[in-house]
């Protein structure tokens, strides 16, 4: 059932056109942050308003929408955003990655590989990868124009000198198409390799900061590193306790107050699909 009194997918058509223009520019200049006239949405800034505006601008009546937060379709924020589009656009929604034409996400990329024709929409809290090193936007714009990313390399080097490795675990900076430094949004660095040469179109929306950017399909996305300190992703000592997967990002679940814990897939759809297919992890085998 859709909510009456509002345009399809909430935003008026003029606003959507403005957004699509910004998105086209973003696709044409991979990794470049395009300013846009971000609107106040009926959800708070910082809760996915950028992603919601991007989704609203690209959604058509035949689209099938999947929304995840922390890899799960069932967390309250994902439920809320999916419900918003079900109410305002009446589009079909799904939990299944292969069925979705548009996937809006916060903090994860699905474990199931994406396909050509799919669009990923990332919610971005902080689009400027240099922001923590240089808060002034007037300066960071200049640094991007000159492709002067020395700051970031120095920061990564200082990590190595101090800790022996790079101490960034999420929102790990990437270089897009050998040109623009880009914040991949706070996905774990585990997901960074999925950005590279993805067959899906990847759109990033930052509502509060009023920026969109994009990675077109099959575009080179390189995580910053050094020859003697190559980029690496997180690894766990044990596979998922529910489905036994050893190739997925695992969340730690605290079981009691005496140190009991288990590790399970953060991607709930991936995990339940594997369990349905007969895979079982240690917790399931113990219970059986």
């Amino acid at each position: 059932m859709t909510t009456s009194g509002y345009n399809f997918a909430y935003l008026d058509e003029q606003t959507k056109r403005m957004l699509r223009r910004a998105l086209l520019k973003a696709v044409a200049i991979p990794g470049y942050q395009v300013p846009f006239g971000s609107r106040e949405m009926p959800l708070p800034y910082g809760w996915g308003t950028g992603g919601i505006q991007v989704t609203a601008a690209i959604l058509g009546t035949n689209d099938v929408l999947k929304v995840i937060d922390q890899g799960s379709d069932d967390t309250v924020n994902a439920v809320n955003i999916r419900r918003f589009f079900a109410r305002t656009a009446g589009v079909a929604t799904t939990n299944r990655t292969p069925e979705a034409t548009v996937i809006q996400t916060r903090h994860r990329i699905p474990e199931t590989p994406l396909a050509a024709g799919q669009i990923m929409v990332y919610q971005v809290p902080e689009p400027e990868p240099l922001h923590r090193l240089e808060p002034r936007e007037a300066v960071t714009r200049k640094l991007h124009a000159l492709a002067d990313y020395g700051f970031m390399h120095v920061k990564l080097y200082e990590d190595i000198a101090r800790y022996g490795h790079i101490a960034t675990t999420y929102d790990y900076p990437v270089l897009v198409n050998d040109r623009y430094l880009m914040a991949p949004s706070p996905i774990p660095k585990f997901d960074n390799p999925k950005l590279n040469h993805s067959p899906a179109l990847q759109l990033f929306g930052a509502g509060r900061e009023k920026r969109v950017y994009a990675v077109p399909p099959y575009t080179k996305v390189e995580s910053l590193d050094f020859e003697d300190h190559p980029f690496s992703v997180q690894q766990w000592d044990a596979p998922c306790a529910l489905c036994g997967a050893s190739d997925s990002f695992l969340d730690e679940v605290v079981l009691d107050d005496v140190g009991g814990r288990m590790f399970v897939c953060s991607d709930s759809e991936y995990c339940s699909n594997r369990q349905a297919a007969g895979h079982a992890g240690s917790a399931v085998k113990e219970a059986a």
Partner: protein
Amino acid sequence: MYVAVKGGETAILNSYALLADARRGDTDVPELSVAQIRQQMRLAVARVMSEGSLYDEDLAALAIKQAAGDQVEAIFLLRAYRTTLPRFGYTLPVDTARMGIRRRISATFKELPGGQVLGPTYDYTQRLLDFTLLANGVATEPPAQAEALPADMPRVTDLLAGEGLIEPETPPDGDPAPVDLSREPLKFPADRATRLQNLARADEGFLLALGYSTQRGYSHTHPFAGEIRMGEVALEIVPEELGFAIEIGDITLTECQMVNQFAGSSTAPPQFTRGYGLAFGEAERKAMAMSLVDRSLRSQELAEAIKSPAQQAEFVLSHSDSVEASGFVQHLKLPHYVDFQSELELVRRMRATHGQPTPEEETA
């Protein structure tokens, strides 16, 4: 046995019901009407209209009711509604010299044309709790009928300008149309028109603190309240099919013109400078704080050293909006399992190697 988080939708729907119940409170107490809020909480309504960037007393009162009196939430409700409204056109600039004055004071001149008018103000109420209001109040005495105020009250700054003692206020070259910040993203450097627009929507508490900081040595601007005026001004538009201006209604405004010292430079003789504040409704604190911050943000243009937060345009303008700030501060309560897991793994790894020589020390 661990079960993945489910049932978010039911939980959300239940939270709606709990919220509605909590908002209504004890049903033995009569429900507050929107008309009551509009009439009897007019200052709350004014703030919600100002920061919500929408002059509509009924909708602002509705937002306050729906938000159970939380001003920032009410402002957010009004903004989210405002986004959906089409633009029919733009009014002509309002002329505050032609304001139907209800309050007008100057801290710089004892006597001035038009006189000082206190109007409805809390300034000299002595802040004693009025317990008759607790007992549902008594009929108040109708205010004494003062003689009608002159229709045109010259602005104090215009009186100073006559002598050339204050900087002239002239439109920039070509008088370009101002940016509409609710349609265009804020960009830096931001011109004064854009800055003022941002400050007009800015959180009152934030402006108050910043303005206060300029009085305590963080970029002192030697301010005097040249004039504060409050009253009704007419809004005019020029419909294309008519080609001349017509009045579409009145709105209440509070305007503050701060007069500030300026030593002059090699190219400019010493003269006073201006800080400007304007807000919907009766909103004197907001207008005054805004004028202090406006003046301190002009440091660069007036070749003053930029050392304090209230002088830094990016710092001030990027953090002034309560809807943006409230959303982002509170987004921290959303799940961050994945990022936290990543940090946990890193901290455990770093603790495991803590105290062992770093690679640099090893090679040294």
